């Protein structure tokens, strides 16, 4: 039963990702990516990560994708501007071989991981537990992230102005 759920969600996320990479229209790609990210949110729920699951829906499938789709519509590209210039054959083959080799190397490392599913408490991954960890051991990175977000906001305001 668990395997069926896993393969369904995995299928949705992989097909969504493939469509995103192969579609010519960026808007179709963005919509496929939303499906992929929603399926990933389901996988997070399978891994007992409630907090990350909620954030994935809110932040990725929600906020970031809305921003991307909004930008695509704002740019309003014509078919001429969307015309894809393919990568050269030799170059493409080299890239393909290198990526597949990297993937196989990764799988080789993966085989060393232990089998078996350890037990986790029902409270594992809920907002209370993750929040307590985040605001104790990870206090400093948390503050750094808030400064980073502030810098990002200022940076966008500067970029978006026509003349500074």
């Amino acid at each position, binding site marked *: 039963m668990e395997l069926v759920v896993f393969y369904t969600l995995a299928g949705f996320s992989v097909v969504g990702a493939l469509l995103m990479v192969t579609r010519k229209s960026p808007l179709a790609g963005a919509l496929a990516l939303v499906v*992929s990210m929603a399926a*990933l949110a389901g996988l997070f729920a399978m891994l007992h990560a409630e907090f990350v699951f909620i954030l994935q829906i809110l*932040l990725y499938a929600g906020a970031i994708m809305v921003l*991307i789709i909004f930008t695509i519509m704002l740019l309003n590209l014509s078919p001429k501007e969307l015309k894809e210039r393919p990568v050269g054959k030799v170059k493409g083959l080299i890239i393909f071989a290198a990526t597949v080799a990297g993937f196989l190397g990764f799988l080789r490392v993966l085989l060393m991981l232990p*089998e078996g599913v350890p037990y986790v408490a029902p409270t594992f991954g809920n907002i209370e537990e*993750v929040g307590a960890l985040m605001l104790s051991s990870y206090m400093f990175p948390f503050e750094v992230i808030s400064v980073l977000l502030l810098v990002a906001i200022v940076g966008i305001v500067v970029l978006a102005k026509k003349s500074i």
Partner: protein
Amino acid sequence: MVTIHHFMVLSAVLFFIGVFGVLFRRNLIVIFMSIELMLNAVNLSFVTFARYTQSMDGHVVAFFVMALAAAEAAIGLAILVMIFRNRATVQADDLSLMRD
């Protein structure tokens, strides 16, 4: 039984689809979305390791990655709009001033 291998293979597949997107496509928006996909795949492996090592540190790191991705998305898209306003192009190989 869904083991760590299932999730890690899925994570690797998604990551390498993202790599293909970055290397084979010339459209800046698609390259950008491929980077988001790669970040998502890495998040999946963080959360997987959190589950199978029974410690929640992976969840916290995944949260930081998401915050970083949000900042990156906002700035990246602002830069993209600026490039389009000044150069009227979204093709990566039209922007080769620093390369040749």
